[in-house]
């Protein structure tokens, strides 16, 4: 029976080529739709590495840039403002931070290590950050007073950077040189799983925190703080914002302040990321519907063209079941060939340098799901016309025009 199946598929190669092309195109469309949705689902599932609940970000605007300004004096005022914020009973913790989570900006640093260049994201933060954002260390420790004594610049890195630099070895205690002119030496004091400051839908990246020591007068170790974040007692009303701004302005009359909950910043960021994704999804759903319609149309036509043959086979003793399985069997052969060709094409994509951000895991899962979808689609689209054809009385089928 299998041999008969291949024989008739081969003998009908012209008509079957059309079906095969339709299945192949459907597969490619499904694959591309799937690879992007699975990619985003996959990265969404990775832990964020911190908690943004009840955290507000405060931005300090010192007015127009003035190169003459006394940096140290400005820093003193900023510290006074931070102290004033801390004194509010609603504020549980406060930390200076250079890049606010979910905010659409990024700092990167570049350096060479063991002959390769790296450019991880970098964030200058104070010792209290873990309390504000509930950051858990996997290994080592966070920055603290001990770091005042060491000559290297302390850093905490994420697992991705640790793997890039040291493979499976432990990074804690290791040192590497910065790419800056000063040839500053970094010392890894701690390891976090991740810190996804671009949110749940952003690509995973290597990350490092550098200690910002606000009590130092050495500008190498101290970076001017123009943002800080505060952790509030759960249930703190939004009205606190106004009180905070009032207090801050009383300390620095010429400066202005902008306070926003991380949750709101995240929401805005999410919205701007999701809009193109949603647009693409709508196009994808539309494409899938087209694919299903096209496929069922082609299969429908291929079956109706063979109603006479079906009548003849039944006149010669084929049961409805045999007809059914013959058509489905042929379809299975054609679909397998199309999926084989499609898989070969799809494997070429990363080899040609496209879709490289997609991991092998996501790629393989996408392949399996796309196979399943196409197989299901062809069976469903083929089942209905097959059952109709098999149910026509043979006397009628033989005269079908």
């Amino acid at each position, binding site marked *: 029976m299998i*041999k008969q199946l291949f024989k008739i598929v081969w003998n009908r190669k012209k008509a079957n080529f059309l079906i095969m092309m339709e299945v192949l195109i459907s597969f490619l469309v499904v694959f591309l739709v799937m690879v992007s949705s699975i990619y985003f689902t996959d990265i969404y599932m990775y832990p964020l590495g911190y908690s943004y609940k009840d955290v507000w970000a405060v931005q300090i605007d010192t007015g127009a840039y003035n190169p003459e300004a006394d940096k140290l004096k400005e820093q003193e005022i900023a510290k006074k403002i931070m102290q004033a914020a801390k004194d509010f009973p609603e504020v549980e913790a406060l930390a200076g931070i250079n890049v606010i989570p979910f905010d659409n900006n990024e700092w990167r640093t570049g350096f060479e290590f063991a002959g390769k260049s790296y450019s991880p994201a970098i964030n200058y933060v104070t010792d209290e950050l873990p309390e504000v954002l509930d950051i858990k260390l996997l290994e080592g420790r966070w920055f603290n007073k001990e770091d005042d004594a060491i000559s290297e610049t302390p850093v905490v890195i994420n697992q991705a950077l640790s793997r890039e630099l040291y493979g499976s070895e432990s990074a804690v205690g290791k040192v590497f040189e910065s790419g800056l002119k000063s040839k500053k030496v970094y010392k890894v004091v701690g390891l976090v799983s991740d810190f996804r400051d671009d949110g749940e839908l952003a690509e995973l990246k290597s990350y490092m925190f550098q200690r910002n020591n606000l009590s130092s007068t050495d500008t190498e170790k101290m970076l001017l703080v123009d943002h800080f974040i505060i952790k509030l007692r759960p249930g703190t009303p939004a009205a606190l914002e106004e009180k905070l701004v009032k207090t801050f302005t009383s300390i620095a009359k010429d400066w202005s302040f902008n306070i926003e909950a991380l949750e709101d910043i995240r929401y805005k960021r999410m919205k701007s990321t999701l809009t193109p994704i949603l647009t693409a999804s709508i196009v994808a759903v539309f494409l899938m519907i087209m694919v299903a319609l096209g496929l069922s149309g082609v299969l429908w036509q291929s079956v109706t063209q063979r109603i006479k*043959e079906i009548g003849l086979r039944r*006149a010669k*003793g084929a049961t409805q079941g*045999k007809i059914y399985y013959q058509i489905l069997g042929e379809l299975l052969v054609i679909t397998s060939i199309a999926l084989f060709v499609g898989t070969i094409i799809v494997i070429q994509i990363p080899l040609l340098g496209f879709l490289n951000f997609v991991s092998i895991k996501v790629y393989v899962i996408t392949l399996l799901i796309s196979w399943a979808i196409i197989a299901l689609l062809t069976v469903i689209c083929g089942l209905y016309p097959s059952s109709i054809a098999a149910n026509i*009385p043979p006397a*009628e089928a033989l005269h079908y025009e």
Partner: protein
Amino acid sequence: MIKLDNIEKVYRTSRVETVALMNINLEVKEGEFISIMGPSGCGKSTLLNLMGLLDAPTKGQLLINGKEITSYKDKYLANLRNQEIGFIFQSFHLVNDLSVLDNVEIPLLYRKISSSQRRQMALKALEHVGLTARIYHFPSQLSGGQQQRVAIARAIVGRPKILLADEPTGNLDSKMGEEVMNLLVGLNEEKTTIVMVTHDKRMAERTKRIVRIFDGRQVG
């Protein structure tokens, strides 16, 4: 061999009701060669389709090879069609995508037969109709007469006791029709029971009995 008892066939569509056959009583005995004659649209094909179990009667009783048709379930009918009946059609109904040999093998695909035995039986049937030289040809490469001979080979390959032929020479010129008719007469001489629908008086005269149908009724 075949016995029709008070057979009636009505075609019902959503709007019209066509009485194709009324009160048909007919017995076909073993070894007979019957031709069914009558004007176009009188119900000849309908009658043959009922005998060949390609369609179910609206009323009446049918016996094939002494077996009463008690059920019109698909599996049961398919098996009877496969074992007991060989069908030949006016328009041949060869599968264009299959070679002559594969076409002849079709009825055997629905039996439990090894592929080598299948091939052997098909070759024998093709030898019978004189087409051994054409087994790898496709239907489109054959003349009408040759195509009908392939169809006859396919009808006899499973060695059925009954052959039903619906205007087997209707699409052929007289010389080719003659060849096909000779084959059928030969098969009948070898004890195959044949029922043939025809328009052609000369063909009918070569059969043993003529049944005439007029407007769905048996008239002689």
